[in-house]
């Protein structure tokens, strides 16, 4: 794991002092609120409906137990005892006081963390595959590149006042767990014919009100060209991106309006210039960074205790079958801790729960934790023999929900409960759906199914790429929920299609239930997932389930 260099440490502390002074200058009138706004945003501080919200970066989703404990400490000392893990590998605190924020930032700096560039029109926290460095299908660990990009983008003098925010995601595996095609730049680590490392580069993805799947900008760029190439893209965007309309300001619109070929030509031109700016110091730094991400020493041990527990305890077995993923080392497993207990707020964790997870990581997980974009926490290297003990401890802390990847593992944005832009509630809908399927006891039968909910058109809940997506709107003062079907955020990214008229708050949960029951009827066997059935049969049978009256009318007419 990456430890801050002296340079990083001095930088972050410098930023805390700068921000302290900026808060003072706002209070004494030197800075207008309008001028202060981007400065506080650059330091992760939003003004929300009820209060300020501080968004702290967890770069590429990786942290150690000391950092997790500090997040717990911040929640206790300056917030209401909990934090909210987001879909972009950040943690948000919803109740900090403006005057406490510099102290919070200082507490973060103490453990090598920060809130820099977690908002504002700049390059945001770089996200990566949450199984990085552990999964079996990986070409290379993407995190050293993400760290290099973090350092490069931090305070980049040209790109702090872009037309709009800019998000970069990196995956090191062909199976895309980082949703890179919905990022402004998506990077996939791959090897060329000669076996040399480099990247396939995508540009112009994004969800929000105009969802678009990123297009391929380059099939392969060599590893050493990463920074000049990304810098070339940003420099083109900074001049070309629209500044007259914030809804048309993302790079996806520039790609759409000018065409990928024009963008590619401009980027290549800029790249030719930029390349000369990098003398190789970045590659030396990359080598140092990579050394810090070396996989921990995974010594072989007998896995008999795991096998025995799995045979003896059905609760453990359900959890193990659902929440474990294959590790590159067969003796180990990747554990996903669900932050989605049925009926709770997706992604919330209390300070006590954070401490439990930190303890488990320290004791059983080589001191490493991950935050996934699906708002869960991951222990990336746990020996199978230790899994029964891990499970027992999680159960005690209310963290052993066995629903990863299932119906109730829902992504939901804050919605009307916290967000000033919301047009509808999203957390309560997620809670009701999860509770309903718990009652039906169908979740494990149904298998992998991604439901994603956004409380307004900005699509923070990624509903466009949910197998079932739900978008809450305001129709003449009444909440109305629109359903999209067949979305996918993986390496086969697809934007879901709108099913038809929306549903009221009372109708939406039964509508989802009808969809899921229809799937169970339609599938050929238990191995065929919801998405596979959808791709085989198309939307019609699902629309029939959603709108039975129309289906009846169609049948009558036929």
């Amino acid at each position: 794991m990456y430890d801050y260099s002296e340079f990083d440490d001095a930088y972050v502390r410098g930023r805390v002092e700068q921000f302290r002074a900026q808060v003072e200058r706002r209070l004494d009138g030197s800075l207008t609120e309008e001028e202060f706004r981007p400065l506080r945003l650059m330091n992760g501080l939003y003004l929300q409906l009820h209060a300020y919200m501080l968004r702290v970066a967890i770069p590429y989703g990786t942290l150690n137990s000391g950092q997790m404990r500090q997040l717990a400490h911040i929640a206790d000392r300056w917030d209401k005892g909990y934090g909210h893990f987001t879909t972009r590998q950040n943690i948000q605190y919803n109740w900090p006081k403006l005057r406490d924020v510099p102290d919070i930032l200082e507490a973060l700096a103490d453990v090598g963390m920060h809130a820099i560039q977690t908002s504002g029109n700049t390059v945001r926290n770089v996200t990566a595959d949450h199984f990085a460095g552990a999964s079996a299908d990986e070409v290379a660990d993407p995190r050293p590149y993400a760290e290099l990009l973090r350092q490069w983008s931090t305070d980049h003098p040209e790109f702090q006042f872009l037309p709009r925010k800019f998000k970069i995601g990196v995956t090191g595996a062909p199976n895309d767990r980082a949703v890179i095609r919905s990022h402004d730049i998506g990077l996939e680590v791959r090897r060329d014919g000669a076996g040399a490392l480099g990247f396939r580069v995508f540009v112009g993805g994004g969800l929000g009100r105009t969802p678009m799947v990123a297009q391929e900008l380059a099939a392969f760029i060599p590893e050493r060209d990463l920074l000049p190439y990304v810098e070339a893209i940003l420099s083109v965007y900074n001049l070309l991106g629209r500044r007259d309309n914030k809804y048309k300001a993302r790079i996806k619109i520039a790609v759409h309006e000018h065409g990928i070929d024009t963008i590619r030509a401009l980027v290549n031109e800029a790249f030719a210039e930029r390349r000369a700016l990098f003398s190789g110091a970045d590659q030396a730094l990359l080598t140092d960074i990579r050394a810090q991400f070396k996989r921990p020493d995974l010594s072989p041990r007998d896995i008999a205790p795991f096998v025995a527990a799995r045979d003896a305890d059905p609760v453990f077995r359900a959890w193990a079958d659902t929440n474990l993923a294959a590790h590159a080392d067969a003796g180990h497993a990747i554990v996903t801790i669900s932050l989605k207990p049925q009926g709770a707020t997706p992604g919330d964790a209390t300070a006590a729960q954070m401490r439990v997870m930190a303890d488990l990581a320290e004791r059983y997980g080589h001191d490493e934790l991950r935050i996934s974009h699906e708002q869960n926490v991951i222990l990336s290297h746990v020996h199978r023999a230790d899994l029964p003990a891990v499970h027992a401890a999680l159960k005690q802390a209310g963290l052993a929900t066995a629903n990863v990847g299932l119906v109730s593992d829902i992504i939901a944005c804050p919605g009307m409960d916290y967000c000033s832009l919301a047009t509808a509630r999203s957390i309560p809908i997620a809670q009701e759906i999860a509770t309903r399927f718990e009652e039906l006891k169908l979740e494990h039968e149904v298998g992998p199914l991604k439901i994603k909910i956004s409380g307004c058109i900005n699509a923070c809940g990624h509903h466009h790429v949910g197998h079932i997506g739900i978008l809450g709107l305001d129709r003449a003062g009444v909440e109305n929920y629109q359903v999209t079907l067949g979305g996918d955020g993986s390496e086969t990214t697809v934007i879901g299609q709108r099913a038809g008229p929306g549903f009221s708050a009372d109708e939406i949960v039964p509508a989802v239930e009808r969809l899921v029951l229809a799937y169970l009827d339609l599938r050929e066997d238990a191995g065929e997932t919801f998405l596979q059935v959808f791709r085989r049969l198309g939307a019609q049978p699902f629309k029939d389930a959603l709108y039975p009256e129309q289906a009846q009318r169609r049948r009558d007419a036929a």
Partner: protein
Amino acid sequence: MQHDTILGPVAARAEALNDGYRNHAAIAVLRRALSDPAVGRIALVSSFGAESVVLLHMISVLDRSTPVLFIDTQMLFAETLAYQAEVAAQLGLSDVRTIRARPEALAAHDPDRLLHKADTDACCALRKTEPLERALEPFDAWITGRKRFQGQTRSHLDFFENEGDKRLKVNPLAHWRPDDVQDYMINNRLPRHPLVAKGYPSIGCAPCTSRVKDGEDPRAGRWRGQDKEECGIHFVDGKLVRGPVADDRPQEHKEPPMNVIVTDTGFAADDRGEEFQPPEETGAAALDLGSDADVSALIGRLEGVEAIRIAFPAFSDGRGFTMARRLRMMGFTGRLRAAGHVIADQYAMARRAGFDEVEITPELARRQPWEQWQARADWRAHDYQSRLRGAG
């Protein structure tokens, strides 16, 4: 943007209107606002507070069918509600629209009506800003009763303001003094808000308004004890912006000779001044580039150019940083200046991107004195770029 295609950019219209009306009386400004096609669809926003009756009266004289938006926060004094009905009837206003927060929003965010205790900004956003923003959606312009004397943050108020390139904001009373308001009310025998006589010279919501002692600023009773002067009814980019909307226009035209040049060593007077020429001017020693200029057009033409100035129309528009970097990559070694709305917090960025100096207005130099720029004059320290590029 929709409003722009019909009427032309808001900023340009605001500027033209201000120029035309610099020395006019409030009523003339208001007449113009109600009738000029360049203003578009307009509404008066009124709190029916202590001084609101002045504008309401003017409207009733000019065009009593003008839409009047009354924001009922549902936290108002009973006296305000009674006064509202009385004034509307007496003046014959025919289109008073009461604006309230959506019941679901209230139920979700302030079910027990205590939000104002925890966070007045959030409460105002919920009860005023958001409902008003919805109500203003169909309008191109709105009229407010804000006046320069009312607070620090309002001291530069103009008759016509560009509100986030979205709407015009018209402040016919911008230049009025307190006595003007009193005189107008006496001369026109206008009804007084009943609470004025009880010691409330400025009236908002009941929980957030207190009495003002003799000699105190009349607005001292609003949000007493808080660092808050404005309710936050200002939008930029369609989003709420709390506090006043700052003037983003480059101000060198207003106060031409007095701009300040910032370098690593301090503030100085401009020693080049008039010499900057448009980029089309061949043979010029100093060029002026707009924020949308195409730097590539200068390839092969930099011979003999000693200085280039790049405009920053708004501090949030970062194109100039990339333009500067490109000029340096093209081999330009002369003096490079960023001019316009660049703030002290951006000084290190400007220097790192290749600028030598920044040109700012005297107003900005007063608000952000040298010490604030000096704090970022250590631009070589803590610089990730030089570390990654191997340049330092």
